[in-house]
């Protein structure tokens, strides 16, 4: 479904991605792991057109999207839930959802109702401003907003960041449901053990490179991953 080949991304003189290659297949959940500054967010930002690669190629469903602009990706079928959630603070929950469907023609009220079923708390809060939601509510809204575009590929950047363990459980449960409903998921996480239990496959990034990738269950037991990302806290 998604094929990235030798992608290089630079911020001015800094090279953030030194030619990364990976792929995501239809129906998978793929986790992208790595320490702070490894280049995970940059990878997702490249995949939704926020930073065009200096070289390399990105294919989505066989189509070359290397130079596609950010605002065109939602129409193509890729939605990006950005790091830090980035809810529109002065829009209501309902308006935030409508923003997710910005480029869709026709009525989107069925989708909205569906989101309210999946995330009942959002229905309760639908008239509230985005700024007044809790972190967990904002994360749910960010995911629901991205789903309003009916993506075939969902990019999630650290959905568990700053959330209480119980809420993280809920969010990861919902990510599983999203995949079951037919949307492919590429998720960036620092919470490696959680992510790997959910994912089918994973890639590990270091200093702007993908250093290895494997089935998630293998990575969970991989010494290198356990040492660096799972620490002592993981029970397996």
């Amino acid at each position, binding site marked *: 479904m998604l094929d990235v080949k030798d992608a290089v991304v630079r911020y001015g003189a800094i090279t953030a991605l030194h030619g990364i290659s990976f792929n995501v297949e239809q129906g998978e959940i793929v986790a992208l792991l790595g320490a702070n500054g490894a280049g995970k967010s940059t990878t997702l930002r490249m995949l939704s057109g926020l930073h065009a690669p200096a070289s390399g190629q990105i294919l989505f469903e066989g189509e070359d999207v290397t130079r596609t602009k*950010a605002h065109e990706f*939602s129409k193509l079928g890729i939605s990006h839930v*950005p790091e830090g959630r*980035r809810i529109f*603070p*002065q829009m209501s929950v309902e308006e935030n959802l409508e923003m997710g469907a*910005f480029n869709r023609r026709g009525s989107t009220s069925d989708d909205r109702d569906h989101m309210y079923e999946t995330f009942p708390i959002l229905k309760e809060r639908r008239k509230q401003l985005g700024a007044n939601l809790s972190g967990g509510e904002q994360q749910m809204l960010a995911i629901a907003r991205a789903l309003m575009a009916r993506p075939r590929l969902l990019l999630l950047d650290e959905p568990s960041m700053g959330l209480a363990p119980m809420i993280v459980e809920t969010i990861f449960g919902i990510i599983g449901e999203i995949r079951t409903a037919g949307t492919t998921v590429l998720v960036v996480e620092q919470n490696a053990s959680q992510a790997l239990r959910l994912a089918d496959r994973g890639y590990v990034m270091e200093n702007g490179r993908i250093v290895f990738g494997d089935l998630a269950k293998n990575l969970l037991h991989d010494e290198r991953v356990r040492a660096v990302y799972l620490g002592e806290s993981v029970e397996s």
Partner: protein
Amino acid sequence: MGAFGHYLLAHLDTLKHEFWALFVGGVANGLLYGMIAVGYTLVYGVLRLINFAHSEIFMAGGFAGYFVMKALVGASAPSAFASVGLIVLGIVAGGVAGAVMAALLERVAYRTLRRRNAPRLAYLISAIGASYFLFNLAGKEFGHIAVSTPQPYINHAVFHIFGAPVLMYYIIILIAGVIMFIALDRLVAKTRLGRGIRAVAQDAETASLMGVNIDRTIAITFIVGGALGGAAGFLFAMGTGVVYTMGFVPALKAFTAAVLGGIGNLRGAMIGGLILGVFEGLCVVFVQAAYIDVVAFGILVLVLLVRPTGILGERLGRSA
């Protein structure tokens, strides 16, 4: 009682007698300031920049309306029906000229800089340069002497409030202003286009992830603000006439109004315009007319010192 007491009493007496007449004139001026001010606020909302060439958008609207009136207004007084038609035509001409000028400015003076991630100062210089170029060009093409606009209607007193006459000119501004404010408010609050503008104002990058074309949205924002500024230019030209420097003072006052109401806040710009217009109108009693502009800019300095976020605070993002 000292001399100052007498001075104050005498002037308060004048204020009592003239209040309603000054008030009505102040409201009309205030509406014009508000119509220009929303242009500053809209552009500030999406770019976080003051468009210091907005005065020339106003001027373009004034001249466009003037030329339409010059071509169409005959020697004899027009019928009521013809008056309405001519005024609407003038407003449309001013609005279109303002919108075109705003679109050009965005393309030439702003977008080129945005492409290069230029520092803020570059935009300021670019806007002031564009402004100088445009009003000097207008001076060269249309002459340096102020001319009055052929009147498409008879400016009689339509009715009186508390004995003060309300002129047709004020009624026209009131109707046009209220319609434009309501339309703009609804556009930004309720339409897809308005949501796009607010999304860019709140978080441009995330807006683009939602599918909002940022370049297009910024251009449209200039155009919408330019249309109102241009229409205001025509309304102003009907009362005061046109000259190549006509934009400078009204636009600076409208900027004051926008800051007063909270730059970036649409309703604030409208309210700030009204407050400034009325305040300035009433001040005529206390200070010589020649000093009125000093009062307006005194307010600007005061607001910037005391409450730089204005009365309603800074946010275009809000629907309200």
